[in-house]
């Protein structure tokens, strides 16, 4: 262990190469200005979300109903949870294009194993517990593989995960025989509360999303690991000189993301009780979009979990509003989303 890891990293982060951000100590003179800028910059997505919500309410009174809000938050949970993991990877200067395919394969594997175990284990609860364990384990393993290929193998993250994007989905298609893998009826019934049940009037996936986001924020801002992640993204070379074990930290970020994908899958499977080759299509882009809209730079260095969560919610709100109104031709739905993504990113752009 390095003697003073935190200070060393702080020095690294404060080099001229580092980009501005709320968490980074700035020169004393510019501190106030930097903070104001950071605040404004962090406000972009929140402002975007508020504007969208007002628009939504004006266009359709049902938008602001509790049911609809819960629908939107629940469906955001998958992408949101993955986006929290993705936020770490992107801050560290990496990327993972495989998360959608990974979620699909994990869902498929879960269903296969649970169906296989059901007759011999009897109690659905233990089968489901094993399934959940498997999902988290697989996520961590896939993340570990990514991390090792990237650090030890010296392959670009973009290339590694582009490869596994194809591999994961192909294996799911193969396991599903081109069709769909469907969970046993009894298991499906026993498992469905994980998605459909409420706790204090709030659906379980929303609670899980909240917990993951809080934990993510805590890890990013309050642990040495979190600071290392930011330092590596800021300037990998400097972090190395500061005796940060760059490879280990990087592997951990991919594992963290893999576990997040596992958690998202655990919530996804009870929704429809099946996985097919279209499961999780384009989730990687949605998760990356959520992170970027939330104010994290694609080149890494700094970013916030709050921003990421707001980004994810913002993206689901857009499609929800489009579904609740019929002002814009359905052909243009994706265009509207594209405009909003670019608009929000523009609002919170930073000077470089």
């Amino acid at each position, binding site marked *: 262990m390095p003697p003073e890891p935190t200070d060393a990293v702080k020095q690294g982060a404060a080099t001229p190469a580092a980009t501005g951000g709320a968490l980074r100590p700035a020169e004393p003179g510019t501190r106030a200005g930097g903070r104001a800028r950071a605040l404004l910059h962090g406000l972009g997505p929140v402002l975007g979300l508020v504007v969208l919500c007002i628009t939504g309410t004006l266009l359709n009174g049902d938008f602001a109903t509790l*049911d609809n809000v819960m629908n939107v938050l629940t469906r955001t949970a998958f992408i949101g949870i993955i986006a929290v993991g993705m936020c770490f990877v992107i801050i560290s200067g990496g990327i993972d294009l495989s998360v959608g395919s990974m979620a699909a394969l994990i869902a498929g594997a879960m269903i296969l194993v649970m169906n296989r175990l059901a007759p011999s284990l009897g109690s659905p609860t233990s089968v489901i517990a094993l399934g959940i364990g498997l999902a988290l384990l697989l996520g961590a393993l896939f993340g570990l593989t990514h991390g090792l290929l990237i650090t030890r193998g010296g392959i670009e993250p973009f290339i590694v995960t582009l490869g596994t994007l194809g591999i994961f989905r192909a294996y799911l298609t193969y396991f599903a025989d*081109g069709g*769909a893998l469907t969970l046993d009826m009894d298991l499906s019934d026993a498992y469905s509360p994980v998605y459909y049940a409420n706790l204090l009037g709030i659906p379980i996936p929303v609670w899980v999303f909240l917990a993951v986001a809080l934990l993510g924020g805590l890890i990013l801002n309050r642990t040495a690991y979190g600071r290392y992640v930011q330092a590596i993204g800021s300037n990998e070379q400097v972090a190395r000189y500061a005796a940060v074990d760059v490879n280990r930290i990087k592997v951990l970020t991919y594992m963290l993301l893999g576990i997040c994908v596992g958690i998202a899958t655990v919530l996804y499977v009870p929704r*429809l009780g099946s996985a097919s080759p279209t499961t999780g*299509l384009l989730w990687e882009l949605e998760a990356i979009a959520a992170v970027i809209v939330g104010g994290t730079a694609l080149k890494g260095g700094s970013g916030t979990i709050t921003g990421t969560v707001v980004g994810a919610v913002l993206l689901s709100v857009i*499609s929800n509003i489009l*579904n609740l109104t019929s002002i814009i031709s359905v052909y243009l739905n994706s265009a509207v989303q594209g405009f909003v993504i670019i608009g929000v990113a523009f609002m919170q752009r930073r000077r470089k």
Partner: protein
Amino acid sequence: MKSVLRKLALGASTVAALLTASGALAQTQNQVNMGVAIPAATHGFTGGIVWWANQAKKDLEKAHPGLKITVKTAANAPEQANQLQDLLTVNKINTLVVFPFESASLTKPVAQVKSKGVYVTVVDRGLTDTSAQDAYVAGDNTAFGKLAAEYLAKKLNGKGNIVALRGIPTTIDNERMDAFNAVMKNYPDIKLLDARYANWNRDDAFKVMQDYLTRFKQIDAVWAADDDMAVGVLKAIEQAKRTDIKEVFGGAGAKGMVKTIIDGKNKLIQADVSYSPKFIYDAIKLTAEARVKGEKLPPNTIIPSVLITKENAKDFYFPDSPF
């Protein structure tokens, strides 16, 4: 070594075929070397296409000794175009059955194959220039929309609110929607509240349906326009605990849905319309049999879409198929 042997065997079988041909003129069996180019199994329906194509290869190669079938699956249009070239130059096919990945971009490559003297049957997704094909075999998209509309209109006694889910913006989807609307024009008291794209995808259908349920307080029937989408629709209805909806009509005759109809398990699901990926099997079979006899197919063959209800559902249930 192996290829030499195979060539020898092929030569021998050709000689044998010629001998039998000269022996019994009535039983002419032409050597048919067929290539089948189809999209890869990326969702339930194309999964079914791949399964039925391989099933056709198995059945037909057994039935016709002079027939050789090579099945190629492609993940996108350019890959399929490459495979067509390979089929021609490497596999030396003289017959092609192609399910084009995209209509426009595959037209030229298929035309090229045909210009080399290969007999071409196009399946389902048509080409933009029909002179690039010898025969066309397809499911009936007009009936797909029309049967659904007629069934729902009858079920609602000509009065009520319907929401529809659409697939991916494509010509087939437009054909289905137009046919549906054409029937509904005769029922002024039935209101189509909205039709949104859910991309033939369960997850998207779930979201779209949730939003419909928020937006419309009274929905009498849902035209899900696909069995995969119907699954998402049912889940959303179940979650919202809505009881106003009387019928959910899917489409394509996926085995799970057909089973539901046979068992009468869900009162919302009473009927379906067939649009089975089995038509690739029919297309391969029709082409192979015609070519073996040295005949031609009619320029257009439409595999009818049929209303599936509890009475006839057994005939549409293929438990081994992945779809």
